[in-house]
């Protein structure tokens, strides 16, 4: 049984926003903004747009490949993503280049040992608005992924392109949600996260951002227990107030391992197995450093160039992990090895978070982006007869409980929610601060039964109703508590009968 709390609410908001946009398109029919509005309207029906952002070499492209399960985004040791690149579901395989002005061009592409390669020819990266890679693929059907250039890049114009895309100053953001990758939490990371965190009341929310501690295997310097360390660090970041104000959660990912797990080949497994089967001491000495690993050796059956290719694909951590898994006998086949890699990489947890935070709330997130964009259009190009449109936006944003929830969570995390401290953790949970499934909101195990959920939800609703009705409350406190009650009722409604 899957229970998606606010999904129905999302459909409702989306419908409201859709008709509002239809109305706006009609009113602006004769003007130059009509086209923008039409695009905005279409966007509501398209998959959610999730941008993958982060500093240079944070592993954005690798993660994208891991999520798609194919090596679409070019990855390289140097800085390589220089243009904002969209990956979306398509009927055919093609790569399209959209210049800032002029017609779009199809770009030739080819596969080179499994990795997609394309060539932008003589185009100046500055004149390219974006590249669009259309690829028929399951992941992309539910959300379009957008690979962005790294921030604090040495080529600072590259960095500027990313910032202009992710947090534009003069127009609404094109992405509905952001997956932010960082190797460690740097000041620059926080700054960037803050720019996503729009200060406009209706939009201020960490709800559309997930932070990813990427290249997690390297945090533990490639040691076999590196992922446990990364988990611990992620947990610490999750509790950091500054981080909590900016994003929903922090998850560790070993991107390379995830990518390898998603695209592992039989011969790669065989090479790992051969290494595991060789003399223990010889292999161990080999695994000490990447230089040693690819060095020529007479005693090994796995040739040097095979080892080198293996290293490119898995990283030293992947090889160490693979060898040790095969040695202890946990893994006996290529499929099992791929599965083990995926499991260790943390990608499943990220997928789950993407699903529950983004995909299941796609309608809400898209509606929110559309409202912000429409608001922007109304402000930038006011027409005499559009005041009621602005009022309708107000109405939707102030009445949609999901939007209210995210505002309250913001206030709560900024320390501005007028509730007693002892109530705050529960309020945060019920408002969806830790995730939206009813079991999470109610603080129960994921496998809790319907009855248990019902009882807990009714319990919470009652407790918060009493709190909201306390005669000594300030009006603000009573209001806040009432909204928590409303969240509990939302859970009850989502549970059904």
């Amino acid at each position, binding site marked *: 049984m899957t229970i998606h709390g606010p999904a129905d609410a999302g459909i409702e908001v989306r419908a409201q926003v859709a008709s509002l946009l239809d109305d706006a398109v009609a009113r602006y029919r004769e003007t130059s903004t009509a086209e923008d509005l039409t695009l905005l309207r279409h966007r509501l029906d398209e998959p959610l747009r999730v941008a993958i952002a982060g500093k240079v070499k944070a592993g954005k492209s690798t993660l994208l490949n891991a999520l798609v399960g194919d090596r679409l985004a070019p990855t390289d040791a140097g800085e390589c993503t220089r243009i904002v690149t969209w990956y979306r579901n398509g009927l055919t395989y093609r790569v399209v280049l959209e210049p800032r002005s002029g017609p779009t061009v199809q770009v030739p592409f080819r596969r080179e040992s499994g990795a997609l390669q394309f060539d932008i020819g003589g185009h100046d990266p500055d004149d390219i608005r974006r590249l669009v890679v259309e690829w028929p693929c399951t992941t992309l059907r539910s959300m379009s992924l957008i690979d962005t250039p790294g921030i604090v890049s040495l080529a600072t114009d590259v960095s500027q392109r990313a910032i202009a895309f992710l947090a534009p100053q003069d127009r609404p953001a094109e992405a509905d949600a952001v997956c932010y990758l960082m190797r460690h939490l740097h000041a620059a990371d926080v700054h960037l996260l803050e720019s996503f965190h729009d200060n406009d*009341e209706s939009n*201020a929310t960490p709800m559309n951002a997930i932070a990813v501690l990427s290249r997690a295997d390297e945090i533990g*310097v490639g040691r076999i227990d590196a992922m446990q*360390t990364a988990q611990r660090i992620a947990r610490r970041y999750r509790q950091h107030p500054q981080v909590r104000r900016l994003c929903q959660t922090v998850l560790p990912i070993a991107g390379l391992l995830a990518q390898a797990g998603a695209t592992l080949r039989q011969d790669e497994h065989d090479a790992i197995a051969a290494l595991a089967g060789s003399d223990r001491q010889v292999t161990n000495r080999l695994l000490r450093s990447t230089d040693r690993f690819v060095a020529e050796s007479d005693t090994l059956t796995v040739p040097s160039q095979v080892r080198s290719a293996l290293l*490119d694909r898995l990283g030293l951590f992947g090889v160490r992990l693979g060898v040790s898994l095969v040695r202890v006998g946990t893994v006996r086949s290529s499929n099992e090895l791929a599965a083990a890699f995926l499991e260790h990489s943390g990608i499943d947890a990220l997928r789950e978070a993407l699903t529950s935070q983004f995909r299941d709330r796609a309608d809400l997130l898209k509606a929110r982006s559309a409202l912000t964009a429409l608001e922007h259009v109304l402000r930038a190009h006011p027409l005499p007869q559009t005041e009621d449109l602005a009022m309708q936006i107000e109405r939707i944003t*102030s009445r949609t409980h999901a939007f209210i929830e995210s505002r309250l969570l913001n*206030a709560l995390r900024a320390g501005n929610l007028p509730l007693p401290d002892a109530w705050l953790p529960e309020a945060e949970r019920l408002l969806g601060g830790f995730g939206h499934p009813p079991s999470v909101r109610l603080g129960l195990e994921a496998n809790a039964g319907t009855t248990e959920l019902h009882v807990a939800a009714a319990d919470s609703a009652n407790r918060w109703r009493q709190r909201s009705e306390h005669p000594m409350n300030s009006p603000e406190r009573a209001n806040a508590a009432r909204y928590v009650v409303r969240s509990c009722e939302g859970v009850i409604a989502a549970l059904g009968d």
Partner: protein
Amino acid sequence: MTIPPPPAATQPGHLDQETHEVLGLAERATSAYQRPDLLRRIQQLRERVSDPQVRVLVVGEFKHGKSSLVNGLIAAEVCPVDDDVATSVATVVGHADEAYAVAVSAPNPPGGQPNREQVDIEDIAQYVSELGNPDNEQELWAFEVGIPRELLRSGLVLIDTPGVGGLGSAHSATTIGALPTADAVILVSDAAQEYTEPELAFVEMARDLVPTVLFVLTKTDIYPFWRRILALNQQHLAARGFDPSIVATSASLRRLAIAENDRQLNDESGYPQLIRLLREGIVAEAAHISRINVSHNVVSVCRQLAQRFVAERRALADPERQEELVAELEVIREQAGHLRSRAARWQQTLSDGFADLTADAEHDLRSRTRLLLKQTEEGMSQTDPGEVWEQIEQWLYRAAATQIAAHYAAITNRARALAQQVAEHFADEQGVPPDAVAVRAPIDLLRQIDPTVSIAGDDAGPGAKALTAMRGSYGGMIMVGMLGGVVGLGMMNPISLGFGAMLGRKAVQDQHDREVAKRRHEALQACRSYLDEVSFLVTKDARDTLRGLHRGLRDTFGRRAQEIERSTAAAIAGAQQALRTEEANRAARLRDVEAEIARLQRLADRAAALATADVASAEHPT
């Protein structure tokens, strides 16, 4: 008169035996010839050059392996290394015959001597890392570790700094502040990625403040593409005009190599190469500078001592022209006397220079504060300070600390250049034989503007005072000023924040605007008074520092002028003594005088040889 050989020098340091001997001979010569003024100069020189410290700052972004590098260099786990928590306080590792560790923290009451608390080496993590001491709650300034190591015996001091750019830290500012006091900087960057803009900006700043910058690539064991990264980094360095040599290292391999005593693994770790660079590049270079310093001073002292005998010899050899000689010497003495007077040109240069410097320093600080204020205003106009006050506060603190550090660095550089300029006057001064006054700018004096804590600890000279004042402004008063601002903001009604939802959007929008405007105003006011406070304290501190420097330089150069005058007086006395020498004794006396001159010449030659000694062949304690 014979000069007995000095006892063999046993103390550690980067000075070699020959330099010690030359200094010993010079000390004996100055006392034998009854020149306590010159003796004092040599003694001070010895004190300065036998300060064995060669400070190497290890800098870089956090979690790039700075602490591991220091541990690898000294082959001991002294700096705590953790995958998660990072170093939050600078750790100063130097030589000691017996291992010890001391935590140096803010003086209590403020303004006094820093607190020094002996701690167990095992407990260092608790003090140094972010976990045991988050945001440096214990107000530690630095952490000193002494450990018996051959590498450090030569005077090398490794300073493990907190990472640049950690979450909400003022770390990078304090590191910049320490730059002018360092002999070298090692920029540590891991092989995961090429240099980023902040890293390169940092080394560009360092280049202006530190004699040597070394580049180290770490963690080469786990990054298969480290050679690519190395090549990319070399391109970045070359493009910025650096010598693009980078040492590739792996602390893991180094650890294994030590544990298993595996020479090949050790070579692969890159550490032997780095150690060679430190020894032959940095330590030897520092020793070389010290030797040049000794050489110039001893040669100058020898010439001054010899002046008397040279005059006497001339008088003895050519009795006819004795009167003429004395008259000539009188003119020189007059000129030397003039050098000592307040109207001397070097005095003018020094006073004018410091007046300009003080005025420029104030202007520099004012423009820095104005820039900060402008940035604050700009930032504020885009945000609601009620929501992001904490970040504004942290940003402002960081930005102010960086500007202050840069301010002090600018002052130090200017003062250095000024001292050089004054020293040149001595050589130009007419009538004074230039070779008699090899006056060198007392650069060491300037090094005392020192925000890092000396490993030797308790020097309470003017430098220590400047240090206390600066530390005070860094950590103490400024924070107090800031907190005042916070209290003011805290009084605001926070309840209205984020509550648009509850009151209906339209009504709130207006009130929201008014509220935000009010909050912005209050926040800006708080920032302004904070910057005022900072500017007030720093202006005062910088002025005091400059005044102290001015005095120090005036005294040093004044003493040089006095020495010159005394030497000329001695020369006149020598010539006059020759006049009184009986005809019969003249030949014998001439022989004695020749012998004295030869003796001094031998010492001067030995001293001169120090300056030209081949650096590479200089002996190192191994």
